[in-house]
């Protein structure tokens, strides 16, 4: 039944995606974003991009839950990151994550019986655009680097943001100086990528296939990689229903 409503009248996607400016990252870097909520148009995976002078900040967060309720939580994360980096001018990624956790703690500690938890896996990258330097800090979200078709993992801390308030959340920053003569591809992804159900046996994609997929794109422009990865993921998934939101951010430097 045609009720005359087009997507331009529907505020759902507009609200969700206006917080995640894909255009900003793509205007600065050779980059792509694949964002596939598990149900409907919105979900609990989100990203945040901010440029300050020579620095570009890219964060990915995988909030608990799915759908509209989780999408509200992604806004809290994006708005809190905005406040910490833009207004409070905190620049070190590890410190930003500690501030983020403390902000979430002050908002949610002691709140019981919520239908959706405030916890999230977060990966935050600070890219120095002039000297090809990367700084990274993560909370249950690793950074994947691919050079010469081989991947390596820059490990994150194992504690989520916004959970386990009685434990010490010490997020540190890893600094990477990049080879001037070789392209590095970087990827941040939510759990939904390696956990994508598919194949003949209905299994998870798994880390091995995920790394193979990312390594196979080395040397190609990011826009081509996006097309290839989407096609591979669709082939893998087949008719299986997804069990999680899926977000993958890739960029080349």
């Amino acid at each position, binding site marked *: 039944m045609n009720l*005359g409503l087009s997507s331009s009248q529907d505020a759902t996607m507009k609200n969700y995606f206006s917080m995640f400016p894909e255009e900003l990252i793509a205007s600065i870097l050779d980059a792509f974003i694949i964002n596939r909520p598990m149900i*409907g148009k*919105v979900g609990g995976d989100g990203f945040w991009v901010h440029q300050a002078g020579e620095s570009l900040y890219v964060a990915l967060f995988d909030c608990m839950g799915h759908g509209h*309720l989780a999408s509200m939580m992604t806004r809290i994360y994006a708005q809190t990151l905005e406040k910490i980096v833009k207004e409070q001018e905190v620049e070190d990624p590890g410190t930003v994550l500690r501030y983020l956790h403390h902000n979430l703690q002050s908002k949610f500690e002691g709140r019981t*019986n919520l239908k959706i938890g405030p916890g999230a896996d977060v990966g935050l990258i600070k890219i120095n655009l002039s000297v090809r330097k990367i700084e990274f800090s993560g909370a249950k979200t690793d950074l994947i680097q691919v050079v010469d078709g081989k991947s390596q993992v820059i490990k994150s801390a194992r504690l989520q943001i916004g959970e386990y308030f009685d434990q010490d959340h010490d997020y540190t920053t890893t600094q990477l100086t990049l080879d001037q003569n070789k392209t590095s591809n970087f990827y941040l992804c939510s759990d939904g990528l390696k956990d994508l159900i598919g194949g003949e046996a209905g299994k998870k994609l798994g880390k091995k296939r995920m790394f193979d997929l990312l390594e196979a794109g080395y040397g190609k422009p990011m826009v081509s990689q996006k097309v290839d990865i989407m096609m591979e993921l669709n082939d893998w998934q087949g008719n299986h229903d997804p069990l999680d939101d899926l977000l993958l951010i890739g960029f080349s430097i």
Partner: protein
Amino acid sequence: MKTSKADFDATCNLFINSVNNYFRHLTEVDSKLNVPYLKESEGLVLKDYTGMIGISGNRKGFVYISANREMYEDLIKIFIGIDKPSDEDILDMAGEISNVVAGNVRANLGANFMISVPVVFQGMPSQLKIPDDVSIYVIPIIWNSHEAFVVIGLQ
């Protein structure tokens, strides 16, 4: 295929039960039903924020749940713990409730009752057009002192 009166009544009852269950189980505050009525005059009954879902398959039509901001604010406080939700949060809450209510009805009616993902809007979109051959059933409910409309339109 036109929906028979018996089918229509049965579908409406499923929505009423789904709404009651939603509030009872997720908020632990029961909703109260006011007298439902068939809407005959032109125009729709809408509150400030609405989540609307299209219905296809054996039955064709729509269902929407419409309420004022205060009701969604109370729900968000219970579900997420946000004290001062934004307009975007309110619209997400409108989408969530219509999605869950319609999803539960779908679980009862099976694969021939298909639902779209929700469309959410504030106020009354000028482009919204309801076909003339749709029977519209309005179910006013009260939850936590807030009035909301569950509106079902079926061909």
